[in-house]
């Protein structure tokens, strides 16, 4: 999958950390770091994170079939 977070929008409510703990983390009080290319197997967790975000800052899309796992 591919994930991007609008960090202008992010206000560190940290709901994504609970929804997908292996893919989102806070460094310090508010600095969100995240996995931009999680494995397709994490899709359920990532989608929970997308929906849990109170400020709708997370966009996630599954890879097209021809580029799954391709590290370009």
């Amino acid at each position, binding site marked *: 999958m591919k994930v*991007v977070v609008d960090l*202008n929008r992010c*206000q560190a409510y940290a709901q994504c950390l609970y929804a997908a703990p292996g893919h989102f983390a806070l460094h310090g009080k508010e*600095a969100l770091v995240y996995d*931009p290319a999680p494995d397709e197997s994490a899709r359920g967790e990532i989608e929970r994170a997308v929906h849990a975000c109170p400020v709708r800052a997370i966009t996630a*899309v599954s890879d097209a079939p021809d580029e799954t796992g391709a590290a370009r």
Partner: protein
Amino acid sequence: MTTSPERIVIVGASLAGLAAAHGLRARGFAGRLTLIGDEPHLPYDRPPLSKQVLRGLYSADTTLPRHPDLGAEFRLGLPATRLDPEERFVELGDGSRLPYDRLLIATGTRARPWPKPEEAALDGLYTLRGRDDAQRLGQRLQAKPGRVVLVGGGFIGFEVASTCRDLDIPVTLLVRDATPLAAALGAQLGGLIGEVAREKGVDLRLASEIERMEAEGGRLTAVTLKDGERIETDCLVAAIGTLRNVEWLDGSGLAADAKGLRCDAFCRALRRDGSVVQGVFAAGDVARWPNPHDDDALVAVEHWGNARAQAETAAGNMLAGDASAMRRHDHLPDFWSQQFGLTIKLVGLTDGADAFAVVHGSLEERRLVAVFGKEGRTVAAASIDSARWLPAYKAAIRERAPFPPIEEAVDQPRLRVQEP
């Protein structure tokens, strides 16, 4: 210009280009859509490059999500080399020509190279702008150089310094100005970040510049500063700003120079005489546009948020037919930076600010919201680890509300207006 376009070409396959492509499809554009990128990569996100990618956290693949039904053709690894706005085609590096009905110019910027070419060519000297740059520098950092010397007092320099400290690499940060980050944040907040950097072990040198470099067999070994001090290093990162990618527009008649490509309030590209180039639009770092929040002063905003917002506006206007149906680009500039565990955010532009007041928290706590004033009006607000309170100030900035905000209020007795 009122006929609906059948073929749209976007030059620049990065954040703005991809956002425009999404925006065009979301508005129902069903014609042929081509994105041209000079890098071999699909559109990718840059902000993580100076932070988690260098540090080796998570995946280094920051390819941006693309809608499954985007239906765009990517021509990657070839730069656009020429524009003919009369015949309406873009020429690529291999000589092929792409005709367009509408064109979006989103070619962005590149890292400013080290000014002395013989030093710039040394092994061990890095710049950071693209994914390949981040991969090269990341590999070097993960091999733990003895000391990294960073040149540049902007956000990239500080973010890379922070990453080096996270990796426990000794780092010297050379800033030409007397105050770090002053251009964007003012001396108060810039000074605070400098203080935090020093506490985290950064050897921060203000008002400091490199006199010359030493090398052995083409490999950097040391630098000598203007004050005569010599620092041994085999890894130097030059984070000294950017250059706009406008050279390919030479001869097109468009008003493009080192400050960017001039466009009007509707993102339409302009000629040198100020007339509109039919069918040609601009967005992102390369576009220089009249900012309604600053009396229409021309500005090129090199921020992530502007790239997306301006691409959205341009996409709508490309399909609008004529100017009466177009929307003006009135995005309020905003950005963030993460360094040393702090999140710094800014809305508005602090250029020319003459007053500053902390309205939440305090400099001592290193958790605050501050508002900037210019000639009695509110022009910007910044937060450090207080992002939740920052959006509340957008309205005041948009309205250019009187500054200072209320003084001596019962809930804010400590509000003090000072120099930024």
